[in-house]
């Protein structure tokens, strides 16, 4: 569909920014189709659960919450940063925020929708949902969650919508080539915007007031999510710092999600002139600061009980530090916090490219060594069990320090590569942060439930362990697909980079170009 037939047309700049609305090749449809299939499969799984009850999950009386609640905490956490970050950057007048605020706020919207669904999926009697209204007790943290999440959803949707009105009016006036339903939608949503000074004044006032209001709401949301756990007596949950701990973790994972989204849109819609390397650098600073705060809270949260080793906490801490959950736990700490921080900082050191002068510190030898290790320790024993039977267990031969040494070697070998590609480094770090964040949510929910005050006894077979079933994994995958669908759908319907906001204030624009925040072509 061409936009050039009608007379007031988009400028070249606007066309670039609206590429997400108009462009759509086979790849886009394949992606949307694939996501839709996963989402529908999740619905099939949920239908199974509705029909047969929660018995189709791996949940039982001991581990009574599992993957669903981990998803809930994860999605609410990811939702956290969009509106909050955008509000803080608006209030502090950070000019570089302009191209990325909307994609951050849209993450909040999509992720809150999916996160808010998760407790419903977890409910034993979703048919009695209205009891929360009919008999709701304000004393229960669940009601706090219901209120605060619905408030945040309403507030952040408005906060996403109101600054978009001028752009919707632009689409209404100039998107002549678009289908009729779209123009009707834009006409409806632009609320008669004529870009008069009075309207502008009012809009800016509203946005500024909303930016102030949305901050405490955003903080409250993840605080009360943590209080679901913090208000119980259970070891591992009975913690006074759970509120700020969860808030810091939410900000960390949310900022990482924004970086991933920035890179995806920049790549998919060729927004290199608007989302520049400088944006990734600045978001990287933010991620480093949030990661340090989160790491500090994690340390404080685990050290205080671990130092005392009180009776209640002992079993839970042992399970997490050295027991069945140790691998996952240390993975989240090393790969979910430490490694992203290193990836965001070390490649920026000036002498890093000189590392390649050492032949051994080039990617190929390091990769070869890693491949050898993988073959020796994983592939060979799996392929020929007879070797292991003959006492040739290679795993026993290889000293335990080899694995960390290999990791350091790989890291050093790829440092110069990441130095040349700072955006890749930021995206890899962000993805690691989000994988680690989900696993950490799982580790907050499950190990505590497996270490109650009274010993687990007389549990029927399979009731004292937690093994998520296909239903739970399908619904989780469906929720992730739903999140991406909402997000992509949003970018197909609405301009993902604010057009009027990136156009305004030309005097600050020159300064921005000098700072390297905005590419020259964008002016």
């Amino acid at each position, binding site marked *: 569909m061409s936009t050039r037939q009608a007379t007031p047309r988009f400028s070249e700049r606007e066309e670039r920014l609206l590429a997400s609305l108009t462009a759509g090749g086979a790849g886009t449809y394949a992606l949307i189709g694939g996501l839709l299939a996963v989402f529908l499969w999740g619905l099939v799984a949920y239908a199974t659960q509705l029909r*047969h*009850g*929660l*018995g189709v999950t791996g*949940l*039982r*009386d*001991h581990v*009574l*919450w599992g993957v669903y609640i981990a998803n809930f905490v994860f999605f609410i956490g990811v939702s956290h940063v969009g509106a909050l970050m955008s509000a803080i950057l608006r209030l502090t007048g950070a000019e570089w925020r302009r191209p990325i605020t909307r994609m951050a706020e849209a993450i909040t919207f999509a992720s809150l929708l999916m996160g808010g669904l998760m*407790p419903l999926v*977890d*409910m*034993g*009697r979703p048919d*009695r*949902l209205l*009891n*929360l209204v*009919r*008999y*709701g*007790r304000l*004393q*229960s*943290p*669940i*009601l706090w969650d*219901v209120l605060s999440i619905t408030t945040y959803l309403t507030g952040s949707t408005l906060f996403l919508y109101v600054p978009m009105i001028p752009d919707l009016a632009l689409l209404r006036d100039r998107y002549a080539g678009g289908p009729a339903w779209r123009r009707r939608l834009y006409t409806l949503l632009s609320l008669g915007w004529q870009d008069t000074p009075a309207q502008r004044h009012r809009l800016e006032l509203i946005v500024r007031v909303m930016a102030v209001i949305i901050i405490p709401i955003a903080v409250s949301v993840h605080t009360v999510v943590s209080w*679901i756990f913090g*208000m*119980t*007596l*259970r070891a591992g949950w009975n913690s006074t710092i759970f509120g700020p701990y969860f808030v810091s973790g939410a900000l960390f994972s949310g900022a990482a999600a924004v970086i991933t989204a920035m890179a995806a849109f920049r790549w998919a819609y060729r927004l290199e002139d608007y989302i520049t390397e400088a944006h990734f650098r600045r978001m990287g600073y933010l991620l480093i600061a949030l990661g340090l705060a989160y790491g500090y809270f994690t340390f404080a949260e685990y050290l205080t009980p671990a130092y005392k080793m009180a*009776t*209640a906490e*002992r*079993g*839970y801490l*042992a*399970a997490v530090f050295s*027991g*069945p959950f140790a691998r996952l736990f240390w993975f989240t700490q090393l790969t979910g916090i430490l490694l992203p921080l290193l990836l965001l900082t070390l490649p920026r050191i000036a002498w890093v490219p000189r590392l390649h002068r050492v032949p051994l510190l080039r990617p190929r030898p390091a990769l070869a060594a890693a491949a050898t290790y993988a073959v020796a320790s994983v592939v060979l024993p799996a392929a020929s069990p007879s070797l292991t039977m003959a006492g040739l267990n290679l795993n026993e031969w290889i000293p335990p320090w080899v694995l960390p040494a290999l990791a350091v070697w790989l890291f050093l070998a790829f440092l110069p590569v990441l130095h040349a590609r700072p955006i890749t480094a930021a995206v890899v770090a962000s993805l690691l942060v989000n994988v680690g964040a989900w696993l950490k949510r799982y580790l907050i929910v499950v190990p505590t*439930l*497996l*270490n*109650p*005050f*009274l*010993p*687990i*006894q*007389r*549990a*029927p*077979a*399979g*009731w*004292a*362990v937690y093994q998520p079933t296909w239903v739970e994994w399908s619904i989780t995958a469906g929720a992730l697909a739903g999140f991406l669908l909402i997000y992509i759908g949003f970018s197909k319907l609405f301009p993902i980079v604010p057009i009027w906001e990136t156009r305004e204030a030309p005097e600050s624009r020159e300064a921005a170009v000098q700072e390297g925040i905005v590419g020259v072509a964008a002016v």
Partner: protein
Amino acid sequence: MRISRRSFLKVAAGMAAAAAVGVPASRTRRPREGFAAEVPLPAPRAGPAGPSRRWVMVVDLAKCDGCRECTRACTAMHRVPPGQEWIRVYEMRDESTSLAYWLPRPCMQCDNPPCVKVCPVSATWKREDGIVMQDTSRCIGCRYCIAACPYQARGFNWVEPAATPERTGEPYDPEWNRVHFRGTTEKCIFCPALIKEGKLPACVAACPMGALYFGDREEDAVTNSQGETVRFSALVIEQAGYRLLEELGTEPRVYYLPPRKPQYPAPPPEEPESAGGAGRAVVPTVPRKRIDTAGGVRR
């Protein structure tokens, strides 16, 4: 409008009276399966459990031989769905050199109940007579109460229970709690329907050792299945009664008498019935009150 204490009490009394009027309909239904001897409660009573009653249970651990008659009677009386045990008999040992003993654990009917605090829909609440009630017809199945209970006294209907109101034709009565709904939480409620008839709860009546006592704290009298009625305060003071996980401040209404000079054999060194076989790989890190399977106590 300010609600004075007096007007509040009036309203509460009115509501209690209204509740009492509604009772006879449910009273006519009896459990079908028989449960153990009907031992009458000692004192004459004016009416259904009213505000003057404060129910307590005392468990004499020295008398408990781990036969689990209490669990069976409870399961029969309430048709407890499989997987749940509203009174569960644990094999306990406080630390590796101390005595192993049996510990029946009903719902503690806490006076500071963590489950009641967190319930979002008042499906569980504290009655004036001390019982923490459960209305499974209102429960939304969020399971927050199970997470909050430190005694694991709550169970969940993960699958469709056998005895639903549709299948049995019996309407749901929270005081009998004999029909069940899928996707809801359930627990021991001290058999208020039996108390109302002047009988002991099913588990207490079924205990062949007379290890379980039940009674009214206001009246200072508790009775066991052997018909022995003793003063509650004297029993608890003389035998150094304690409450489970007292340090959590839940204020349970179940008291335990220590297993001093036990009259019956302690749990065997192995855990023969612990069906959570696979689970043990996950939980051996619970050091507290877990029987050391390697060196169980024999006397």
